[in-house]
């Protein structure tokens, strides 16, 4: 590690004449077509400012990538910058003093005033100091519907989750899978979260996840959510794909009626040249409660002995939040920007729906922000088992409450 730092220091010294050209290795798990294009925007902007972006993409999603990132940081071989979902994923790294304090950058750039919703910056804050630069907002609570599938089944396209459930028998009669759901654990977890917001509503979500009120978690509203999820798993019984985008593909081709997936599914419909409203329909908050939980991605900067690298890290942090980069990146990514003062005129209909909800402030914090990764992981293990087996809703509910209680 010392050697690497030394070498990097030496190379930085050698290049000192050419302004401040420093190489920063940036690790992330953005590997799909749209995501890679978005990362290219970040790299372009960083390179244009005189530094060099060394791309360290790790495929297989966050659950594959995060272990690698964490073991590298704790293993003493830190990268220049790394993506995490903002919230508690990097909390202990911050507490162990392994992350660079960005408070001075944040103050100089006025993040506190500009980042919207402010909860994004709160998720970066530990003991009053800021440790990450948020780059985008993700909302997972979307229902994507294939207009073609419903047409062929002879029923109107639903406008909310309840209508969707009611239309399911017609879809099945037409030989279609009502709900597409990939096998990976996080997808079941995501679907469950979306159903929670939609069926139980904002207040229940907040008291369970923010106030951590376990009486509400064990109460009848959540029992109804588990019933609804048990219903959903019946609709998804015939879905036999692994990846989320394969499931999206079932919707695109009209083999499945719908899919619960985050706003990033948008990119797949775009690639397939489908038009929102004509070929497919998107229902934020499953059409019942137009609230979105706003998780997202943020960059953290592991501490480094070399002042040259530290300076470059701070330059990158400032750059990521700047309006130009926010627009370029988020348009490519199909996600929402983290500041309210940028113009996204080029956004499509579904993205605009999301922007409206964002502007209206109908937001809840995401699970990543309020629960530790340990609790999240256990809940995910439970929910995927629940969604992919015939576990009784009451049993799953009880086990779920127990997991959440252990995390308080």
């Amino acid at each position: 590690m010392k050697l690497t730092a030394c070498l990097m220091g030496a190379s930085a010294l050698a290049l000192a004449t050419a302004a401040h050209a420093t190489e920063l290795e940036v690790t992330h798990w953005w590997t799909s077509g749209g995501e890679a294009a978005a990362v290219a925007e970040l790299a372009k902007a960083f390179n244009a400012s005189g530094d060099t972006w060394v791309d360290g993409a790790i495929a297989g999603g966050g659950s594959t990538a995060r272990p690698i990132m964490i073991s590298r940081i704790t293993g003493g071989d830190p990268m220049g910058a790394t993506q995490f979902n903002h919230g508690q994923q990097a909390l202990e790294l911050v507490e162990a003093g392994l992350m660079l304090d960005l408070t001075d950058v944040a103050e100089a750039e006025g993040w506190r005033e500009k980042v919207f919703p402010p909860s994004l910056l709160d998720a970066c804050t530990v003991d009053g100091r800021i440790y990450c630069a948020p780059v985008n907002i993700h909302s997972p609570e979307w229902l994507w519907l294939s207009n073609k599938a419903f047409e062929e089944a002879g029923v109107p396209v639903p406008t909310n989750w309840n209508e969707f459930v009611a239309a399911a028998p017609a879809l099945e009669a037409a030989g279609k899978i009502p709900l597409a759901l990939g096998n990976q654990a996080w997808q079941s977890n995501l679907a469950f979260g979306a159903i929670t917001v939609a069926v139980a509503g904002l207040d229940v979500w907040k008291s369970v996840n923010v106030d951590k009120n376990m009486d509400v978690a064990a109460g009848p509203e959540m029992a109804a959510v588990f019933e609804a999820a048990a219903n959903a798993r019946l609709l998804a019984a015939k879905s036999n794909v692994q990846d989320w985008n394969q499931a999206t593909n079932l919707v695109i081709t009209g083999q499945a009626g719908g899919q619960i997936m985050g706003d990033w599914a948008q990119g797949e419909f775009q690639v397939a040249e489908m038009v929102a409203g004509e070929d497919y329909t998107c229902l934020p908050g499953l059409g019942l409660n137009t609230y979105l939980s706003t998780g997202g991605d943020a960059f953290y900067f592991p501490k480094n002995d070399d002042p040259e690298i530290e300076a470059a890290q701070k330059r990158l942090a400032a750059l990521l939040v700047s309006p130009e980069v926010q627009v370029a990146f988020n348009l490519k990514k199909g996600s929402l920007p983290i500041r309210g003062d940028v113009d996204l005129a080029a956004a499509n209909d579904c993205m605009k729906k999301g922007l409206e909800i964002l502007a209206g402030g109908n937001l809840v914090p995401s699970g990543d922000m309020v629960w530790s990764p340990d609790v999240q992981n256990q809940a995910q293990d439970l929910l995927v088992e629940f969604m992919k087996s015939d576990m009784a809703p009451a049993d799953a509910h009880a086990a779920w409450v127990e997991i959440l209680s252990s995390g308080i």
Partner: protein
Amino acid sequence: MAAARRPNALLRNPAAKIAAIPMILAVLFVFVGGTIWTVVYSFTGSRLLPRTNWVGLDQYERLWGTSRWLVAIENLLIFGTLSLIFTIGIGFLLAVLMDQKIRFEDTFRTIMLYPFALSFVVTGLVWQWILNPQFGVQHIVRDLGWETFTFDPLNDPDIVLYGLLIAALWQGTGFVMCLMLAGLRGIDDEIWKAARVDGIPKWKTYLFIVVPMMRPVFITTLVIVASGIVRLYDLVVAQTSGGPGNASQVPAMYVYDYMFQAQNLGQGFAASTMMLLSVLIVLIPWAYLEFGGKKGRGRG
């Protein structure tokens, strides 16, 4: 040995001792040290970084109360038992067939053994493709006219283990066959002659004379295959990622996920300690059988 003849053995042959330093370091720091370290820290509440906040048996209590771990253990037992029976059974049968003075023995062996040269990742990906319901075996049988034929192990929680089993057998049986064949060829020719003179049928000779004589080979194979099964990781990651649901979870995945993904090192250490324990259950009786009676066997 040369060294034993003279006194003051500690200072003699410094070169030999220097040469053994890598082994000594590896044993002390990695195999023994690392193992003890993990076991010790499994009694802590370490999260993302190892800490010595002792929590007693809490991690183990939680582990054995976790549905995913229980599923993983159950899978390991089912998969392990089937895999042991089938690899050793099929391996032995194939070895017997190969031992019948057949033509093209080398060709057959080459065919059966080549999967063993491939990694589990490659194996998992190939079988994932062959078992793909949209394009693979199921699709083909349906095209042949059997419209209702359903064989989709990778998406059916009830039979997903068999999907893994098919791939694991493909990769490993050739290897076991080779071990068994070597064992068969190691049987003294006189035994066969005597059996033939006595008019004992061939299958009886195999079953009642050869198999008992090959006991050491069977035991060694059992230990190798069993310790491989406990470690099973790459194949599952590549073929099913533990799904659908938790249906094909294995302990090694639990360890990795909790150590690094859930940022709960203590839980991961507790789980890996349990893996160690399960290996020791297989290993200690074997070591006792294998080495117990024969002390100081220096030369083969």
